[in-house]
C-alpha cells in the first residue's frame, strides 16, 4: 500500500495564517509518494473546491487553526457537491477539539488529525482511506 499515484490538495481556508502544519503534512505525504498541491493562504471553500476539481485530486486536506472548522468544512463539502465532486475525500487537520470530531465526520470529514499525532500515523490513515 502506498500513496503512489494519488493526488492530494492541501488547503488553508479562512484567514488563519499558521501554515506550518499544512506544509509539514504536505511534505510528509509527498515523501510517501503522493502528488501534493498546496493552495497557499486565505482560500475560500469555493476556490478550494474548484482547484480540487481542476487538478483531479483524490483527496483534499483542510488545515484550520482558527476555530472556524465547522463552518469551513461544511462549506467546502457543499462546494465540492455543487461541482459534482462529492467523491473527493476530505480530511481536516489543525486545532480541532475532540468534541467536534463527530460532527465533522458527519459533515463529511474522513479523517481528523491534530498536532500531537505522529506523521507516520497521519500518512497511514490517509493511505488506508484512499486505498480502501
Amino acid at each position: 500500500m502506498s500513496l503512489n499515484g494519488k493526488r492530494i490538495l492541501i488547503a488553508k481556508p479562512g484567514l488563519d495564517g499558521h501554515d506550518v502544519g499544512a506544509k509539514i503534512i504536505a511534505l510528509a505525504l509527498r515523501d510517501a509518494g503522493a502528488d501534493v498541491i498546496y493552495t497557499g493562504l486565505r482560500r475560500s471553500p469555493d476556490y478550494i473546491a474548484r482547484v480540487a476539481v481542476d487538478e483531479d485530486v483524490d483527496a483534499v486536506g483542510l488545515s484550520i487553526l482558527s476555530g472556524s472548522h465547522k463552518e469551513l468544512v461544511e462549506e467546502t463539502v457543499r462546494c465540492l457537491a455543487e461541482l459534482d465532486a462529492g467523491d473527493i475525500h476530505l480530511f481536516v487537520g489543525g486545532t480541532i477539539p475532540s468534541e467536534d470530531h463527530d460532527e465533522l465526520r458527519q459533515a463529511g470529514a474522513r479523517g481528523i488529525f491534530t498536532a500531537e499525532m505522529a506523521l507516520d500515523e497521519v500518512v497511514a490513515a490517509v493511505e488506508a482511506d484512499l486505498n480502501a
Partner: protein
Amino acid sequence: MFSRQKKGSAMSDSSAATNKTGDKAHRDPPTKPSTATPSGIEVPPVVTADMVREPDQGMPGEFPFTRGIFPDGFRGRLWTIRQYSGFGTAEESNERYRFLLDKGQTGLSVALDLPTQCGYDPVDPIAKSEVGKVGVSLSNLAEAEILFDEIDVSGISTSFTINGTASIVYAMYCAVADKQGVPREKLTGTIQNDILKEYVARGTWIFPVRPSLRLIADTILFSNEQTPRFNPISIAGAHVRDAGCTAVEEMGYTIANGLAYIDELIRRGGDVEKFARRLSFFFYVHMDFFEEVCKFRAGRRLWAKLLTERYGVKDPKALMFRFGVVCGGSSLVGAQPDNNVVRVGIENMAAVMGGAQSIFTAAFDEAYQIPTEHSAEIAVRTQQIVAHESGIARTVDPLGGSYYVEWLTDQMEDEISKVIDDIETYGGVTKAVEDGWLQLKIAQRASERKRKVDSGETVIVGQNYFRRDDQNEGVAELFKLDPQASARVIEKFERVRDTRNDAEVAKTLAALETAAATDTENLMPYLIDCCHAYATVGEMVATLKSQWGEFEEPVRL
C-alpha cells in the same frame, strides 16, 4: 458574554488519544543527556577557561553589551510583566484588562481578531466566521474608545500584536490619546509591526514586500517625532521559532530582518543614530536553558557589533538590543499539562538570566485551551516568584564568567552570523521572502523537528516518554464565543458606519490615496485623520491596496 467549553469533557473524551503514539508511549527513556543543543551545537563534557574566546566581556551597559544593556541590570527596575489577552468584543476585553491591571500587571497586551489583522471589516464575506475569534475586533475608532474606556492611556504600556495593519492600529491609538486629551508624547507601548516574519511564518501579510517596508518605515519615523516613548516595531523571531526553527535561526533571521528595516529607514531619510534607539525585539524562550540564555547574550553582542561596523552607529543607546519574550508556546504540551507550570518557570528564569526587558509567561493550559482565570493567575504568579523570591534578579548577568556560558555564547554568535550570511548570500531578506526561499527553509526545519519528536530523539516528558497508562491528553479546545457576540460587533459596526460624517470619511480616504501614490509622504498623519473620521480598517486597507496591490504568495514545497 462568551462561554467556555467544559474542561472535563475535552480532557476525558480521549480514549483514542491515549494510545495515539502506540508502543512508543512506553519506550525506555534515555539514560544519558543529549550531547548537542537543539540548534545542533556539540557541547564538550567540560568547558575550561582556555576554551573561551573572549575572557573579558566588559561591563553591563557597555559595548558590546554581552552582559546586558543596563549597568545595574534589574536593580534599577524589574522587567515588565506582560500577559497576552483580549478576545471577543471590546467591552469584554476592557473588563479583562481592568481585572489584569488590578492583579498587578504592569502592561496590557492586546490581541486582535483575524479580520482586523488582515485588513477586512467585520461585514466582509471572507471575515464572517472569524469576527472576534482570536482577539478583539478593532474595526474603527469607536471600538478603540470602548477598549480603553476608563483606562488612562498615559498611565499604561500597551502592546499590540499587530502587523499587516499595525500602522492603522497605531493611528487609532494616537487618536484615542487625542480623544482622552492625553498628549501623544506620553504614550508608551509597542506595536509588533514586523511584516517580514509574517510572510514567513504567521501569514497576516496584505501588501507586497516593498510598500510594506515603506509603511513600517513611516510608522517608525513618525513615532520617533510624535510618540518618542513608544516602540514602533518589535522585530520578532518568536513566530519562526514556534513554527519550527532553532534558537540560532530564530536569532539569525530576526537580526537579518532588523538590518532590512534599517536599510529601508535610511532610504527614507531616517537618522540611524536616532531611530535605532526605538527598535525592539521579541523572542520565544523554549526549554534548553543555557542555549536560551546564550542566544540572548550572543544576539545582543552581535547586534551592537553589526550596527557599529555597518552603519557606524556611535550612540550606545542606539546599539542596545532591547527585547521582550514569551515563555511557552510550542514548548508546552497537552500531555500531563500541569507539568507546563515547571517548564514556564524554567523558561522564565532563562529569560531573566538572558536579560529580557519584558516577559510574558504562558498559562499551563495554553497548549489546548484559552487560559482560565486560574491558569492565567499562576502564570503571573510565576513571574512574581522569580522576581521576588528566587533572588536571581539581584545581580547583573549572574551567569557571566561561567566558562560554559561564555563558550556557548561564542558558539551561538558564530552560528547566528552564519545564518545571516546565508540570507545575504541568497540576495537579502526581501528576495528570500518574495521567492519563498525562507518559507521553504522553515517548513523543512519544522518537519525535522516533528520527526525528531515522533522518533523519540527529542524527549518530551509525558508525551513521548514517561506516560501514564491512564493518561488523558489535554486535547485542543478553543474559546467559544457566544454566537451573538459577533452579531453585536457587526451591529455596532453598522451603527458607526451609518452615523459618521460620510463627507469627512471620503475626504480623509482620498487624501490617504494621494499620499500613498507618492513615495515621499509619511502616511501616518493621513491614517490618523482617517481614524478620527471613523473610517474603517477595511476602507483604509482597500485604499492602500488600490495603489500598491496585494502580496502574491510564492507557494513552494
